[in-house]
């Protein structure tokens, strides 16, 4: 992680790691999760789901910090993250 100034307690701060899951059939392709994931974990798929929408794909799973923002901003309950052991 990049900081504009190294925090004094940087050694003690634990960055959580997350595993993000997409419920593809529920997605309506609004891109909210992709735009607002500050870690660039997600990208739009080339393929369609059953309803004809593109859905997010996890392109950088290692970068997910389990912040849940994609989960709370998704209007379709189609994506969520869970904590993963480091």
């Amino acid at each position, binding site marked *: 992680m990049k900081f504009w100034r190294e925090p004094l307690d940087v050694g003690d701060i634990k960055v959580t790691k997350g595993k993000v899951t997409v419920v593809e059939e529920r997605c309506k392709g*609004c891109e909210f999760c992709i*735009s607002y994931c500050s870690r660039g974990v997600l990208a739009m798929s080339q393929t369609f789901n059953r309803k004809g929408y593109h859905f997010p794909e996890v392109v950088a799973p290692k970068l997910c910090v389990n912040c849940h923002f994609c989960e709370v901003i998704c209007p379709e309950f189609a994506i969520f993250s869970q904590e993963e052991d480091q």
Partner: protein
Amino acid sequence: MSAQAQAAPQAAHPQDELLRTDRIPHIWCSGCGIGIAFGSLMAAIAKCDTPRDDISVVSGIGCTGRLAGYIHLDSFHTTHGRAIPFATGLHLTRPQNKVIVASGDGDLLAIGGNHFIHAARRNVDLTVICVNNFNYGMTGGQLAPSTPFGAKTTTTPMGSPDEPFNFCALAAACGATYVARWTALHIRRLTTAISEAMNKKGFSFVEVIAPCPTAFGRRNKIRRSLDLLRFYYERSVVKNHLAPGEATIDFDNKLVVGKFVDIERPTYLDQYDMVNRGELEAWPATGVDASAAGQRKAG
């Protein structure tokens, strides 16, 4: 997806326990803000200590009104504008219940406007969540009392000639005990506001500024929901405890968001019980001195 991931059963979404999953995907358009507000409400309910059987959700007609049909709690989808009267009845028969009203701006404050005013005045212990998308989405995007001056709708193709309501100022003026406004992108603060509103005794009101790309955005040259969501957020300024009358929704200057009112006031049931138990002394409490009356010079 790898073969291994496909073989393992996919974990369930954490909000599935509060959703009627058999009805999902819901009817709301791609990028509609109602889904975000609904998720926020479910997050607040999940955190709440009240037993699930004692929480009920009431909604009226409209896009937001469909919400009652998707939540896995006691819920009722009432007739147009009548969510608050129904919720009032429910609250009075089961005072231990937390009754949440979630509906749109047109339903709550146009056709249901009078119910809103009087429920706030009587301080009925309800939590009212208004998803404000500035128009009547379900019926094709007509002018609503929330439509900003100059904004285009199907019934005002040249732009709305009317001044819109300031719902937060109205709620506060009528006596609401909790009043807050957030945009859908202020999602964490919105969830906190809904939690606070649910825990507040009396009439509490949370307004959610939400994108309606299909009916409102499309006619106002902001077609993409992502742009509309960002537009509301970027025009907003947070001003907690500002006098609600000054909390304007002005897209050029200040779309004020924040918590504006958080006060204590006896609820409708408190006052009703007090009067009917005969605990209230005479009115007016200071008494009337008949001999003194009429002695003070008028004017």
